[in-house]
């Protein structure tokens, strides 16, 4: 593994994404991506008493499923990287407490999924692990409760607001395998262009995505056309437009091959999700469900997967702070 450019790491023996799994909630099950997920739930409690417990169960079952699907016994998995949106990452900690795999709890807001894959692939390539598990989750109800208002409050969601995806995505990275391979990682820096509106997350995170995207192209010398698809996590409809504009202002045209998981997971008109999906599970489930299969079937051969996160909490918003954004990118090739 070696550093190229300012912030990209290029792998000499790229780790393989061995297997993925995804479980989603009822609203996602009504969306256009429904057929690609491993399991869809019919209610958001899934037999649990609280949403927090339900979210823990979702990540637990997703991890169990990816382990079963991969055929690798749990005790052969060396490390686990997991995180979520709830305070102190309780969904992943509580969901994975019986897993008995050394765990790194990570927080990158909605960028956690790719953050975990960045760290995991460095562990694998560096010889520290043969198998690494990365997982993340989010839940509409628990996120609304923590970040916004009670569900039963009769308020209107502004057209810029996004809908937190209920679900979980998990992947297993392996030292050797048949691909798809993680060839490069470009971890991103925090970018804050002063957006304060918690109902416009796409606009808050787009500058960070732009910053990481530019860094990736400069470091690797690649052009947008190198990739079959450039995929961001949860910029939504507004953030997606902003990223296209910003890239164009620097002379990169990403119109043809760029899309966003928040745009893909819901049908904006039918499902009334306003600016699209968001949450850790947005990119987690769409990558695990859809893009991994597309890569396996070689319909896509090179994708740039970039998860975006808004690094705020309800206290910082109440104190009038702006919303810092972050984005981490990985190239996946087969």
């Amino acid at each position, binding site marked *: 593994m070696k550093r190229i450019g300012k912030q990209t790491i290029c792998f000499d023996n790229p780790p393989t994404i061995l297997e993925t799994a995804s479980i989603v909630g009822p609203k996602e099950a009504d969306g256009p991506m429904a057929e690609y997920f491993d399991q869809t739930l019919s209610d958001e409690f899934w037999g649990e008493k609280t949403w927090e417990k339900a979210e823990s169960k979702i990540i637990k079952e997703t991890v169990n499923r990816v382990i079963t699907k991969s055929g690798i016994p749990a005790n052969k998995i060396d490390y686990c990287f997991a995180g979520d949106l709830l305070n102190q990452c309780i969904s992943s900690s509580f969901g994975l407490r019986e897993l008995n795999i050394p765990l790194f709890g990570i927080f990158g807001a909605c960028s956690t999924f790719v953050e975990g894959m960045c760290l995991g692939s460095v562990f694998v390539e560096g010889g520290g692990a043969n198998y690494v598990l990365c997982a993340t989750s989010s839940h509409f109800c628990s996120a609304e409760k923590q970040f916004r208002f009670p569900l039963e*409050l*009769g*308020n209107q969601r502004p057209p810029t607001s996004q809908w937190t995806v209920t679900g979980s995505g998990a992947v297993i990275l392996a030292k050797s395998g048949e691909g798809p391979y993680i060839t490069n990682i470009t971890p991103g820096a925090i970018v804050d262009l*002063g957006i304060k509106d918690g109902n416009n997350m796409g606009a808050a995170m787009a500058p960070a995505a732009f910053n990481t995207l530019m860094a990736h192209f400069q470091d690797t010398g690649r052009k947008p056309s190198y990739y079959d698809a450039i995929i961001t996590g949860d910029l939504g409809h507004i953030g997606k437009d902003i990223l296209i504009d910003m890239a164009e*202002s620097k002379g990169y045209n990403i119109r043809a091959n760029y899309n966003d998981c928040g745009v893909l997971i819901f049908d904006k008109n039918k499902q009334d999700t306003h600016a699209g999906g968001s949450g850790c599970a947005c990119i987690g489930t769409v990558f695990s469900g859809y893009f991994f299969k597309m890569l396996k079937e070689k319909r896509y051969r090179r994708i740039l997967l970039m998860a975006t996160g808004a690094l705020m909490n309800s206290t910082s918003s109440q104190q009038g702070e702006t919303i810092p954004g972050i984005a981490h990118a990985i190239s996946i090739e087969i």
Partner: protein
Amino acid sequence: MEPIETPKEYQKYVDKKSPNSPILKNCFNAFWVGGLICSIGQLITYYCKFRGADQQTAGTIVSIVLIGVSAFLTGLNIFNKIGKFAGAGSLVPITGFANSIVSPAMEYKSEGYVMGVGGKMFTVAGPVLVFGISTSIIVGLIALIFI
């Protein structure tokens, strides 16, 4: 588009890029739902007076009935649908005050009946009482000077 350098430029650009709320449609819905809720209140007032109640008593009964009905509708998971449609139409009448007390109470039931329901009940509506009551005390104190 020109490259964006400063937060100010970006905010301006984002404002242009973000869709506005459908304000005409929202106002229309708020108008007729809000008007309807008030009219129901008016009919209850007439009924109380018909049964011999004075203005003050009738007003209190109207508040209690509307609050009771909103609490009931919130509990049945219906109020948030009305609120989504009517916006300020159901928020600004006393129904919105009731909903803002019941909804966190339901939400935090999972944290127990004392600190969950009891403690979180006023997370949204608490400020209304704090500001309303405090201002009324100031008004009373000022009135004291003029009497």
